[in-house]
């Protein structure tokens, strides 16, 4: 059972320790510089974490149809769906949306904190309220106000609902040089209508004008009969504007124009001071856990605390967007619960290992033998526990994440009967749990093993009592 002892060199502990501590400090404070009053953030710190409405509050907007317009319940429902879809496109994954059927109101809440630089709530509200009615019309006959008239006003070839899917595409084959455009896959019905219209207009040498609300985006001449249900929209697009238009087409048109009836901030739904209380509680709880583990398990306990610091810092780093590659999410109460669960798993991993080392020592093993077989035997339990967490996290992220995320696509076969409904709060739990557990395998198993093995090389630290063993 006991293999040849492979010693971990003494300095390894200090290297790992310093790396973890430097990382934790950089996550806490971030890196930013001030030039006059302008702060440039190089690496995001904990201050840059975006919190949900429950913890930090946000904005509350009431939309109504225009004066005198009586919206039906179905129209209100579909308007709410469109708004929700648009919020997801704007990366607002934590939101509440209510409908008041009797007064024709839609109330929307989403997180925002005063002074937030990267997110402009007024622009967001404006975008949420846009009608976004896509139309393909015959010809380009305009009145004095540049609005469609004549056959252009009466003959609508395609509407937003004829589009099955829209996406931004980069076309390098165009004769006028490469350009961004919006590619459309039409529904069967839409493809039929489009084929008929292009056949007719191709014979006449006519044009089709493409409109978003009252703005004409482009009016290409029909140069072929298109029967495969594929169409593109070109116009002065860049990467961002083509994606925005594709998102708007995908999320559908509002059945009526939305007027902002009121627009105000809203305090945290958990109560004022929720964030401060959570932070203080988190710090005190961490200190108590650290003291308990060190008291119970001595040296392995001390190492476990360092590993836990690394794990917590790592999770916060993923949430704050510390690593450039992942966009910062919105942290809500379920998200914090995910962190708590992952930290609990981290504590458990270290408890299981330390307990096994103690047992092995008490069974009469040598210190080196006990350390090696302790880690070995504890590992299968830790691996199974953490892998099941990862599976659960992936299922939750797939079920409640945005429709175009990897996990959603992967699990589409399970949730195909549901619309693309997104619950950012549950997604947030899955996200923090997934990152927390993966980091636990790294810090709680790999790093803590390196550190403890290296420490056990010091003469002064070779007393089995330090590892929970009986006196020798």
């Amino acid at each position, binding site marked *: 059972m006991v293999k040849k002892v492979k010693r971990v060199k003494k300095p390894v502990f200090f290297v790992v320790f310093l790396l973890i501590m430097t990382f934790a400090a950089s996550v806490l404070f971030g890196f930013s510089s001030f030039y006059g009053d302008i702060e440039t953030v190089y690496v995001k710190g904990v201050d840059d974490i975006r919190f949900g409405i*429950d913890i930090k509050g946000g904005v509350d907007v009431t939309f109504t149809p225009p004066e005198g317009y009586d919206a039906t319940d179905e129209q209100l429902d579909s308007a709410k769906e469109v708004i929700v879809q648009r919020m997801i496109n704007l990366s607002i994954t934590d939101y509440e949306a209510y409908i008041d059927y009797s007064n024709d109101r839609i109330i929307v809440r989403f997180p925002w904190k005063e002074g937030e630089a990267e997110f402009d*709530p007024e622009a967001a509200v404006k975008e949420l309220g846009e009608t976004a009615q896509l139309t393909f019309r015959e010809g380009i006959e305009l009145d004095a106000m540049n609005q469609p008239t004549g056959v252009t006003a009466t003959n609508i070839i395609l509407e937003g609902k004829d589009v099955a899917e829209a996406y931004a595409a980069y076309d390098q084959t165009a004769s006028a040089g490469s350009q961004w455009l919006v590619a459309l896959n039409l529904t069967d019905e839409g493809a039929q209508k489009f084929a008929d219209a292009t056949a007719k207009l191709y014979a006449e040498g006519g044009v089709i004008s493409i409109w978003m609300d009252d703005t004409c985006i482009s009016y290409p001449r029909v140069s072929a009969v298109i029967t495969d249900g594929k169409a593109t929209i070109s116009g002065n697009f860049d990467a961002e504007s083509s994606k925005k238009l594709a998102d708007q087409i995908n999320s559908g048109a509002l059945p009526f124009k939305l007027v902002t009836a009121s627009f105000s901030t809203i305090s945290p739904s958990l*109560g004022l001071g929720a964030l401060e209380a*959570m932070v203080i509680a988190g710090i005190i709880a961490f200190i108590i856990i650290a003291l308990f583990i060190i008291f119970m398990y001595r040296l392995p306990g001390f190492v476990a605390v360092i590993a836990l610091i690394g794990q917590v810092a790592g999770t916060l780093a993923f949430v704050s967007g510390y690593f450039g590659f992942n966009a910062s999410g919105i942290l809500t109460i379920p998200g914090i619960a995910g962190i708590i669960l992952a930290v609990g798993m981290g504590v458990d991993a270290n408890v299981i290992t330390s307990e096994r080392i103690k047992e092995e020592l008490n069974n009469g093993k040598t210190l080196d033998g006990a350390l090696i077989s302790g880690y070995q035997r504890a590992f299968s339990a830790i691996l*199974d526990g953490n892998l*099941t967490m990862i599976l659960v996290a992936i299922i939750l992220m797939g079920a409640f994440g945005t429709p175009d995320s990897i996990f959603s696509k992967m699990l589409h076969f*399970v949730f195909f009967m549901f619309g693309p*409904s997104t619950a950012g709060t549950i997604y947030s*739990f899955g996200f923090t749990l997934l990152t927390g557990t993966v980091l636990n395998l790294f810090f709680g198993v790999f790093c803590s093993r390196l550190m403890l093995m290296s420490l056990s090389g010091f003469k002064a630290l070779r007393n089995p009592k330090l590892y929970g063993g009986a006196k020798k």
Partner: protein
Amino acid sequence: MNNCKFNIDFIKNRKIYFTISIILMVFCILSSFIFGAKLDIQFKGGTLITYLYDGDIDLNTFQNDASAALEGIGVKATTGTDFTTGKNNIQLSMLSNSGLTADKQMVLTTTLEEKYAANNLELVESTDVSPSAGKEFFSKCIVAASFAALVLIIYIALRFKNIGGWIAGVCAIAALIHDIIVVYGTFIVCGMEIDANFMAVVLTIFGYSINSTIVIYDRIRENNKLYGKKYSLAELTNMSVNQSMTRSINTNVTTISAMIVISIVAVVYGVTSIISFAFPMTMGLLSGAYTSTCIAGPLWVWLEEKKSGKGKPAAPEKSAEA
């Protein structure tokens, strides 16, 4: 054989545990009929009343005054500032089944306007809102949970196949459902609203419960490898649960004390809504510790004995696993 601190015969006592659990389950489920589940405004819909005011108003006091004016109907208050007018507002939200009538709303507004006359309190609007997360959300949750349970059963069946994995998987899920029902019962009995906190607690307990059960199973798997031929499954389970006892106690002491700290800080800061997170979590953790030691293993042994027709339980083959 067993040189460990604990030596409790969990298998012998299983009838006691099963009885306790069944009573607990029945109580939790019945309580939702007796006390009634209070769904949050997001799931149930309700009424939002907005007032404008000048100066300063203490949110907690206002919330209590509003609740008193409504003869105890639960009220949640939030404040805000209007972007266009720059005026302060305060918004009260009440659940749709709370018994709020038009008359009571009138009383509420007159009482509050009188009490906060110095703040020029003024009613802006009252809206009745539909749930923001509807039936589709709930059915998706149920599909997600069932799918997760299925995946976990398969995972456990594969990883523990040498000790008869399928039944082990089913038992782990049974323990899990037990713990979630305890969490649900805690919310109902304490009259807490089923809201985002509830979702957070259920998801967390889901994880903790499965993990604790797996730690025990892992020990059984290991002991089976070491002594598979010598002992019956019942004896192996007993030995394993006892050996894992210190770990169960220490892990739970740390996590539960963390929850207690959160509760205390929440009370000190007056953010009582956080207690509806920390307290049910504590109950769920306790239940998880109990089911993983007293239910998952013994239930499994019992089912295996049933399967192999009493007598010697399916003697697990000597494992071939590395």
